[in-house]
């Protein structure tokens, strides 16, 4: 082979600038195509997986258009009882009917004048139809609407009825949930209203003074927590005295004087010598006020923050944020008040229930939820919701100590209304002053059975007087019913 041919061959093997450039261009094309496939994959994932959660949003006005082709689905209780249904009126128009009238007015809500409660939460499901495609096309051909999916809630009709009856004509709220799962079993707020024909009675409802019927007091009502807050003061004390909390001793004279201020135990009761458990169980204000003064204010604020004060709550219904405002420079008087749940602290019943449920569940809060599953109009499953963990509000040991002390409240302290042979219960009463000269708001929050909590309940009765006498019996009725009902099965 001649040398110049060899050289020629070598030159051919080496790439010319043009060939190199073309190879670079090819690489670029691959890169761009990969980017676009990534984008399409992302959009596909969005449409296939996260779509429903994203578009089911009150800011998405498009959902209202669905009602042109879909008849709003039913809302059912956990046992399948109809709580809301759309029916055709004589003139052919659609009417949303609520068979239980005012009973579920806040939690199920209404859809005729804006949307609230589960009507808002489940709006997307109610306006989506998952009947089979053939019948959907058939309906479209005949101009009829497709039946929307039905939402099966976690709500228990008997419990809801019992809670409403127990509250009677009093203003207030009752909420119940399963601590281990977060399933909300009942949610009552009084005064209530009849969601049937809400549009007609709207003007009279909103013009009524001092009633605030439309407000769901369970999630939006901010009340001073009174002695139920001692749970949180106690938790902070446990955190600061993990070893020697059982050495605590206080001598109660029925009142405690600090500077110019005097603070009394409820009805001026003299509790005498108190351990920590006794002070908590008898709800001794003197003991908790003096104990509160010892606590680290920063630590107290941190604990309150960890227990969802001033922050977002894991709730899908409209709610108010609870308020805890004691800063590090708070005067002693404010500290005393705050320690016993008076002062500037405000809390919703649902928030109190979440703290209680976390204690019952070993410190772990489950996200409260209302929708068990979604079915098509014929009851075939479309989607179901599993319990989800919010996180740990306290460690297991702290939860155990609090649980024991709350059990003592029932066996030996202010929660005597719950003493029974049938099951064990734990709780905390509260009688919160809110305006001089008015009766206190009555609180009770607790759970049962102590060993294996299956239900947690929080009750607030506005101007109900003593928590132990007014609120605790309401909880008693729910416990009796729920635990008895299950035993009977």
């Amino acid at each position, binding site marked *: 082979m001649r040398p110049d041919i060899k050289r020629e061959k070598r030159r051919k093997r080496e790439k010319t600038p043009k060939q190199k*450039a073309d190879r670079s261009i090819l690489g*670029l094309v691959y890169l761009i195509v990969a980017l676009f496939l990534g984008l399409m994959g992302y959009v596909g994932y969005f449409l296939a997986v996260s*779509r429903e959660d994203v*578009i089911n949003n009150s800011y998405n006005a*498009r959902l209202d258009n669905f009602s042109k082709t879909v008849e709003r689905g039913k809302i059912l209780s956990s046992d399948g009882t109809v709580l809301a249904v759309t029916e055709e009126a004589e003139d052919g128009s659609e009417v949303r009917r609520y068979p239980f009238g005012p009973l579920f007015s806040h939690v199920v809500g209404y859809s005729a004048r804006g949307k609230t409660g589960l009507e808002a939460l489940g709006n997307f499901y109610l306006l989506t139809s998952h009947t089979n495609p053939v019948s959907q096309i058939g309906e479209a051909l005949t*101009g009829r609407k497709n039946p929307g999916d039905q939402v099966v809630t976690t709500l228990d009709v008997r419990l809801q009825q019992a809670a409403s009856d127990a509250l009677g004509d009093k203003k207030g709220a009752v909420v119940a949930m399963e601590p281990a799962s977060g399933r909300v079993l009942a949610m009552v707020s009084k005064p209530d209203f009849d969601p049937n024909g809400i549009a007609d009675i709207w003007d009279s409802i909103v013009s009524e003074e001092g009633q605030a019927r439309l407000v769901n007091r369970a999630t939006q009502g901010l009340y001073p927590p009174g002695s139920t807050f001692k749970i949180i003061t106690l938790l902070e004390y446990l955190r600061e005295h993990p070893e020697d909390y059982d050495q605590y001793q206080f001598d109660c004279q029925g009142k405690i004087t600090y500077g110019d201020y005097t603070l009394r135990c409820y009805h001026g009761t003299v509790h005498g010598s108190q351990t920590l458990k006794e002070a908590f169980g008898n709800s001794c204000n003197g003991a908790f006020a003096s104990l509160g003064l010892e606590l680290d204010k920063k630590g107290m604020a941190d604990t309150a923050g960890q227990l969802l004060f001033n922050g977002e709550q894991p709730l899908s219904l409209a709610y108010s944020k609870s308020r805890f405002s004691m800063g590090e420079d708070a005067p002693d008087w404010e500290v005393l008040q705050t320690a016993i749940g008076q002062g500037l602290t405000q809390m919703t019943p649902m928030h109190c229930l979440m703290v209680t449920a976390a204690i019952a569940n070993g410190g772990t809060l489950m996200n409260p939820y209302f929708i068990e599953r979604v079915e098509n109009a014929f009851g075939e499953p479309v989607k179901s919701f599993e319990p989800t963990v919010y996180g740990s509000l306290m460690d297991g040991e702290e939860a155990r100590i609090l649980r024991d002390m709350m059990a003592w409240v029932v066996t030996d302290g202010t929660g005597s209304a719950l003493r029974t042979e049938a099951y064990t219960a734990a709780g905390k009463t509260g009688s919160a002053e809110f305006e001089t000269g008015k009766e206190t708001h009555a609180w009770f929050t607790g759970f049962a059975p102590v060993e294996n909590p299956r239900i947690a309940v929080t009750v607030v009765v506005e101007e109900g007087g003593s928590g132990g006498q007014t609120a605790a019996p309401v909880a008693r009725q729910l416990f009796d019913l729920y635990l008895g009902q299950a035993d009977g099965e």
Partner: protein
Amino acid sequence: MEGLIVGASNYVTILMAAMYTYWNFRCFGVDEERRDRYLKRQNRMMFLIHFLSFSVMFLKTGDERLFPFYGAQAAFLWCFLALYGKCYRSRCKLLANNMCFLLSVGFIILTRLSFDKAIRQFGITVCSAVAAWLIPFVIRRMWQLSRMAWVYAAVGLGLLAAVYVAGDASYGAQLSLKLGEVAVQPSEFVKITFVFFVSAMFYKSTDRRQIIVTSAVAALHVVVLVLSKDLGSGLIFFVTYVFMVFVATSDWIYLVLGFAGGCGASVAAWKLFAHVQARVIAWRDPWADIDNRGYQITQSLFAIGTGSWFGLGLYQGMPGKIPVVEKDFVLAAVSEEMGALFAMCVLFICLGCFIQFMMVACEMEAMFYKLVALGLGVEYIVQVFLTAGGVTKFIPSTGVTLPLISYGGSSVLCTFILFSVVQGLYMLKREEEEDYEAGY
């Protein structure tokens, strides 16, 4: 019944768009005869989609103005295809088809969104088509184009500086210049001069000194754009430049340097500019500020999500809820009412155009032409990616439009120029080959 027609039309439109897209990619690997058959079918599909969409719009609105407007659009598309074929025998038919397809989608969705704007856009489109007519002719005859690097730089930088100094702000960015009644977006034109500048520079030489000088001038373009807060254009210029250097030198180091520099610049922009931070925050968690910063992107997601794969049907969604829907977020409107599958077909067609551009770039012997085709193609596809990624929350929104579909006169004119330049290059190559075959 009407509901069913409207509902079924979406499925039919998507099927036809899918077929159109399929033929687009089939064209890349078959002989001329079969390709011509596919291209004819594509035309049929395009006119059918256009007709069906206007029928649906008429059924939904009963607006009789739609008849003449439809007629004018169809006539324009038909004339464009026919006359282009007559004048430029060796044109790239696929590229011409795709231009018309994208234009027809733009006509449909703009007519849906705003009749008045659609009329305006149609007028500008017709003028642009006429103006861009001469470009392939010029490209084929003016080799001098490669010798005017500094003219391009001067014109480009001058225009950008004018916007920076005297521009009108819209949505926080200075984009347009008022010339009497007309607002012009010079950055659109500078896209073209920029690519020509870089190509001319690298055509002359790719030694280190030349690269430094070119990089400095290119960086100046980007800096002025960033100062005018036109971040989307800045990003497009930057990415385009990096790829042009890479292809011109075939040296990986420039790609690495470019992207390292890009990351550094992004971090600096994030630290320095509040509006960059706002965009990124709105991207990371739009739900936290759904009333303000997150409003646009969440409405866009609602639109795409509610429309889902098959769309709600024309006039059945609420694309008007998305701010500036006819410009930056037009793809969300397409997706909402015509279906995400349809929108994906549109994106695949854009990708098809890009691949065609790159094929032209590969076929070019002269580095100048190669770089021009490459640069214009990269500019085009990066812009498509930014707008598509922005409306779907894949990347932060950069506020750029979807070429040939979004509302905007400067954009449509420049895209016409861009496509016509590449057409010119394609014809150049084809004619060379034909001359060669004919034995000259």
